[in-house]
Each structure stands twice: as structure tokens, then as C-alpha cells.
């Protein structure tokens, strides 16, 4: 049924689909793992039950999200070989070792300590358990370090030599490969994005429960913590994004031209096109709403600085403009909306109305999934923006694919689409079910028994009545 399709296009769709779906989960779990470490640390430091309750509440959600991240991540580690074997053969000597380091220093760390983090509190004690939580959080960050180094090397390759057999070979210094020019910017921008994404999820869940019960102290605490993140980190992210953009202008100017919609060169100051419809056939942005010279101001810090356009680039080396133009605007728009929520929350805090302004809570609720949209839009911008290359200026995407027939790629794509939508929709539904139940005192941990809260061993007390709520909850202290 896929005989009339282009195998290359199907392989590209497959990679885009599987990696986009996958990245949703790490974008959440990188931030959430750190948040859990902070909550457990605060619990150990202050001894307040509230923090342990919040820890347990989010731990259950983390368990589900992490499982989905793991299974969709394993797919990625094999996609290089199955669908991009020519790329794997050529780039393997350079990026393979970085990915091996990711497995050795990050994946094992996360997976090795996850079991203790989820089920081990009563077996190892509080302090060792906290150490395990920190190791999982560290693992998520180290993983981001290596994989973003790989991605950045593909965008801004440095430190390599060309082998006689057509392979990219490592040069004298691995430092030049790992810390390639775009890597520090991409790392900072992506990790902050993950923190913001998580903060807005936590804030949205807090807001939802505040709207239902304004006096819920657990909801208040998580909302307050999330809003601090929004207020402090959203401005940093906008600054980091600007720096990343300037770095892209230096190393991948075509990408910035597509982001800005600059089909033409502007020798004396380029306008900032706010909105419009890019038309690549006519090589112009229709119905453009623009601010004169503002793009030169942002990119060159000079109103009259000349900016080259796509007219300086041969047609077969240009990225698709429309997708990049729009995904960039979605990302930036959400970034500024996050900034707005952060500022609004500061105002509310100043007036001592943080838990009372229901319109702020409603806005935070609407913004809960915004981080995911922004993160995916950002990745679309950077990945589509580097086309038609998979290794920038050196290996074209069309020369990197596996020698597979279209029916093979099409059938596997169809299988991925069906399975991912079914499995991950259900998983997301379970997460939302967990989020919809209010956090409450003596929050139970990750449950693994059929028999409910009563333990057969007889050491732990039976169910006790929750003084603040209506549900019976277990009173066992060590359970996580």
C-alpha cells in the first residue's frame, strides 16, 4: 500500500514522529525529577509532612511518565540504524561514542536508582532514598548533556577529519567535538525549557485544585513554587533563547533567515516580520505585519545593520520557510505568555492575593500544557531549519537514509503511529486522572498491591481516617 510513496519522506516522517512523541516525556521528567529532589530535600530539612505528601503525589505521576519516556527512548536508539544506516555508518565514529557515554553515565544511573526511588524508602532509609532521588535527577540531566551534544554536533560539526572510506572520524580533541559551537547554548535553552515545562504543569495542577478548593494547603504550596519558577526562569529563558538565536545566526544563517521570513537581503536594516504568510514560490511573505529595522536591532544590535536573505542561498540549500517561520513564532509567543503569567503572579503575591485571584488560576490552568507545545515547536524550528542537511553543510538528509523499500518504512510508520497514539494517549489519561485527584495529607505512595491499604504483615497500622478529608488513607510513614 506504500508502493507509491517516497521511502525517504516516510523515513523522515517516522523519525520526526517518534522523536517528537519521545521528547514530550523527557521534557517533563527532567524537570519533575529535579522537583522531586527539591521536595524530598525540603522534607528532610524541615520535617514538614506537607513536602512528603507532595513528593508522593508527584512520584506516582513521575513513575508513569518515566516509563513512557523509557520505552519511547529505546526506539530512538535503534532508529539511527534501522532508518538512517548510511548516516550511522558515516557518523558513528564521532557521535557513537557520545551516545555510548549517555548510556553509561546517564541511562544506567536513572534506571539503577529508579527502583529504589519508587519502592525503596522503607528498605534503605530516608537519607539513602534521598540520594537515590538525586541520582535519578542527575541522570536525567546528564542524559540531556550527551544527547544535546550529539544533536549540536550535527548542527555545527567541529573537531572531525574525513576518512578515506567516507566516514567522519574524530580529530585530535574530543573536547572540540563535544563542546561544538552551538552546544552550550542548546543545552542551556533546552534544559531551562524542560524546567519551565514542568513548572507550568505543576502550576496548572495546583491552580486546578485551588479553583476547586482555595484552602487546600498542598495545592497552595505547589502553585506558589511553580509561580516562582515562572517569574524567575521565564525571563532567563527568553534571554537564553536570544543568545541561542545569535549563535544560530553565526553558524546556520539560513535557519535564521527562514525563522525571520527574510527571502530578500536588507542592506540597510531588516524589518521584524511579526506575522504573515510565507510564500516560497513567490519568495515573499504575504500580508506581512512588520516593524521596520527591528530584526537588525535584535540580531545585530544596530538598526541599520545589513542582513542577508535567502536570495543569497542556492535554492537547493534552503530550508522550508513556512514551517520554520510558524513554529518559531509559536515558541516565542508561548515564551512571552509564560513571562506574563510569571509577572502576574508576582503582582498577586505582592498584593497577597496569590491564592485568591481566580483569573490567574484559570490562566495558569490554560497554560499547563503550553511548555510541551513550545518545546516541540522549538525543536521543529531547529530541526527543519537545518534542512536539507543532517550533518550541516556536509551530509544531506537524502544521502543518509537506509536502503529500504517504501512499503517497509511505511508499514513500520503506520505501526508506530497506531501504537504510540493508543499507548501514550492512555498513559496521558492515567496521568491526568492522577492529577485530577487532589493532593491531601498522608498522601499514599506508589502502590503495588491488590489488597488495598491494609498490609498483611501486621506491622503497619490499619487504615486511619484522614482528619482533613473523607477518604480513608493509610498511615504508614515509610511507604513511598
Amino acid at each position, binding site marked *: 500500500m506504500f508502493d507509491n510513496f517516497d521511502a525517504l519522506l516516510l523515513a523522515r516522517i517516522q523519525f520526526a514522529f517518534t522523536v517528537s512523541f519521545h521528547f514530550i516525556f523527557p521534557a517533563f521528567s527532567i524537570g519533575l525529577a529535579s522537583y522531586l529532589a527539591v521536595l524530598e530535600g525540603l522534607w528532610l530539612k524541615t520535617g514538614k509532612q506537607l513536602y512528603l505528601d507532595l513528593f508522593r503525589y508527584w512520584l506516582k505521576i513521575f513513575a508513569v511518565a518515566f516509563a513512557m519516556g523509557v520505552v519511547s527512548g529505546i526506539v530512538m536508539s535503534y532508529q539511527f540504524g534501522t532508518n538512517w544506516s548510511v548516516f550511522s555508518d558515516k557518523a558513528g565514529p564521532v557521535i557513537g561514542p557520545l551516545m555510548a557515554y549517555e548510556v553509561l553515565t546517564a541511562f544506567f544511573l536513572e534506571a539503577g536508582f529508579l527502583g529504589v526511588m519508587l519502592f525503596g524508602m522503607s528498605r534503605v532509609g530516608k537519607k539513602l532514598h534521598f540520594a537515590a532521588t538525586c541520582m535519578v535527577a542527575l541522570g536525567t540531566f546528564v542524559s540531556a548533556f550527551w544527547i544535546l551534544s550529539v544533536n549540536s554536533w550535527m548542527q555545527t560539526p567541529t573537531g572531525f577529519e574525513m576518512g578515506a572510506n567516507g566516514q567522519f572520524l*574524530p580529530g585530535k580533541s574530543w573536547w572540540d567535538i563535544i563542546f561544538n559551537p552551538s552546544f552550550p547554548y542548546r543545552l542551556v535553552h533546552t534544559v531551562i525549557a524542560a524546567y519551565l515545562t514542568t513548572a507550568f504543569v505543576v502550576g496548572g495542577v495546583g491552580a486546578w485544585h485551588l479553583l476547586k478548593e482555595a484552602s487546600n494547603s498542598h495545592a497552595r504550596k505547589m502553585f506558589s513554587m511553580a509561580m516562582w519558577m515562572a517569574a524567575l526562569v521565564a525571563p532567563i529563558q527568553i534571554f537564553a533563547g536570544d543568545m541561542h538565536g545569535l549563535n544560530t545566526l553565526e553558524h546556520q544563517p539560513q535557519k535564521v533567515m527562514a525563522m525571520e521570513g527574510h527571502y530578500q537581503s536588507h542592506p540597510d536594516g531588516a524589518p521584524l516580520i511579526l506575522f504573515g504568510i510565507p510564500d516560497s514560490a513567490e519568495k515573499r511573505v504575504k500580508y506581512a505585519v512588520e516593524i521596520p529595522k527591528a530584526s537588525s536591532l535584535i540580531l545585530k544590535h544596530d538598526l541599520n545593520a545589513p542582513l542577508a536573505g535567502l536570495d543569497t542561498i542556492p535554492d537547493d540549500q534552503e530550508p522550508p520557510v513556512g514551517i520554520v517561520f510558524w513554529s518559531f513564532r509559536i515558541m516565542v509567543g508561548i515564551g512571552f505568555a509564560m513571562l506574563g503569567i510569571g509577572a502576574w503572579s508576582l503582582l498577586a503575591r505582592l498584593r497577597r492575593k496569590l491564592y485568591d485571584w481566580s483569573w490567574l488560576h484559570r490562566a495558569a490552568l490554560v497554560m499547563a500544557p503550553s511548555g510541551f507545545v513550545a518545546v516541540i515547536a522549538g525543536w521543529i524550528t531547529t530541526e527543519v531549519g537545518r534542512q536539507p542537511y543532517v550533518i550541516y553543510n556536509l551530509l544531506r538528509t537524502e544521502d543518509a537514509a537506509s536502503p529500504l523499500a517504501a512499503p517497509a518504512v511505511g508499514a513500520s510508520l503506520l505501526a508506530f503511529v497506531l501504537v504510540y497514539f493508543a499507548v501514550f494517549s492512555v498513559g496521558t489519561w492515567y496521568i491526568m486522572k492522577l492529577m485530577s485527584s487532589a493532593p491531601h495529607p498522608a498522601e499514599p505512595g506508589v502502590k503495588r498491591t491488590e489488597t488495598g491499604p491494609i498490609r498483611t504483615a501486621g506491622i503497619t497500622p490499619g487504615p486511619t481516617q484522614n482528619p482533613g478529608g473523607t477518604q480513608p488513607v493509610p498511615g504508614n510513614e515509610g511507604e513511598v
Partner: protein
Amino acid sequence: MDLTVIWAFIIAFAVFAYVVMDGFDLGIGILFPTFKVGAERDQAMNSIAPVWDGNETWLVLGGGGLFAAFPLAYAIILPATYPLIIAMLLGLVFRGVAFEFRWRDPRHRAFWDFAFTGGSLVAAMAQGMVLGALLQGVEVSGRTYAGSWFDWLTPYTLLTGIGTVAGYALLGATWLVWKLEGDAQSHAYRLAFRSAIATLVLLACVSLYTPFLDAAYFDRWFAMPSFLFASQVPLLTAIIAYFLFRGLRRKHEASPFWLSLGLFLLGMAGLGVSMWPYVVPDQITIWDAAAPERSQIFMLVGVGITLPLILAYTAWAYWVFRGKVGQDGYH
């Protein structure tokens, strides 16, 4: 000994670690429907819930390590076994999420239990068939796979696939013998006995079939002087099989699991005899496929530092959850 040989052993170690560690997880998945709904199934799953994720990570090291140390082999083997790899990955998706999802949704627990078994079965079968497809040979032209996308489907690969399923079931059953008590344990003993017989029969079939696939295999097994070394593999297998059955009859709790691991180790040794020094049999040697020395050295530093640590904290995690699973899960 050169770096390429060291790397071949590191990859072989990662593959072996994966096969035995996720092998018992997948085996439990395969045997899952034979356990009673309720406490028995919960215990079977709880016995691996804290460790399955770490076990599966060895698959990423095996694949990622092959990519890094032998990129050419990675670039040929994966397209050659494309549908199998995709099936394995999708199987692992269902198997992995079932660990969490079955607890989140009691009304659909039966479905997620089915997904747990189905995913485990598909992944095990696919892994065994990938091995068979590799051993029966793949078509290579230049630096790429040159066959079509169903070359891997033959009676031989079906045999290696079923053999792997049986072997994983043996690992799973002996693990459960170790971790369970009472009726559930008695059931695990029966399963271990049956899967041991199936494993040994299928292992014998594969071992007899393989030398006749290719004259080079035959020579490596039966020509002097390699015969002197190679013949130890079936001999040791017979000895281990004897002790395995004896252990099961005398209701030993831990030894059946370790002896089953021994069977897999010997299977790995037999594989080594057949393939060495090829990574794609009779086409690509480990030296043809090897990454350049700079990549090998850089990664060897990483492996030298991290692998002992990984083994240490993995052992610690197993130690934390040692002993019988009990009725109440891990709390």
C-alpha cells in the same frame, strides 16, 4: 590483544548481560498468564518491578555500543532485520508500560496483563530471530545491506526465535522459584521443569542445524584443533543440564536460576565459536567494522570508569530488594 578484540568482548558482555537480565523479565512476561489472577500475578510482577528498567538498559548499551564501536555492523544488521527490530521495539513498548499501567487502571488490568505477555513474547521471538537471521547470513554490497526486507524469515530463524522464547521462559521460571513462596513457587517449579526440557531440545536442534548452514561454521566446530575447544561447549552444557534438573527435583531455590544463566553463557560461547572473528558472518570481520582507534580509546576510558560503578550500584539495587517478594509488594 588489540582494542578491536577488547571491544568485541565488551559488546558481547553487554549483549549477554541484556539477554540474561531482561531475559528473566521477558520470561516472566511470557509465563504470566499461567499465574492466578490476583496475588500470584502481583507477586510475579513485583519481583521485577524495581529492576526491569535497569535490565532493559543493557539493550541500549548493546545497540548503542555496537553503533559506537562497530558502526558498519550496526548500519548493516539493523536494516537487514528491519521488521524484527521494529516488532521488538513495539513489543517492548507494551511490555514496559504495562508495569505502570496495570496498577493505574484496575478495570482494564486484564488488558494490560495481556499486553505484558504479548509484548514480552513478541520481543523475545524477535530477538531470537535477529540472532538466527545474522547466523544464516545477510547480503551485503559495499557498505550497505543489499537484501530485501523479508530475507530474515526462514525455518531456521523461526527455530532460533522459539528457542529464545523457551530459554527466557526458563530464566523467568527459575527466577520466580527463587523469589516466590507457597503455591506460586510450586507452580514456578513445574514451569521451570517444562521450560528446561523445551530449552534443551531447541538448543540441541539449533546447535545441530547451525554447522550445516555454512561450511565455515562446520569447520570451526569440527576441524582440528578447534574441535578440542569447541567440543567442551556441549559437554559442559550436558553437565549443567544434569545439575539443573537435580536442583529442580530437590527443590533448591537459587541454584536453578544460576545454572540456567550457565546454560546461556555456554550458548554465548557456542555463538562465539560459530561467528568469530566475523560480526556479520563471512562478510564483515570485527576489524572491518571497527570504529577508529581514537573512538575506541575514548570509549574505553568511559567504560573503564563507569562499568565497575554501574555493576556496583546495580548489585546494590538487587541487594535492597533481596529475598522473597512477599504478599505486600515493596513498601
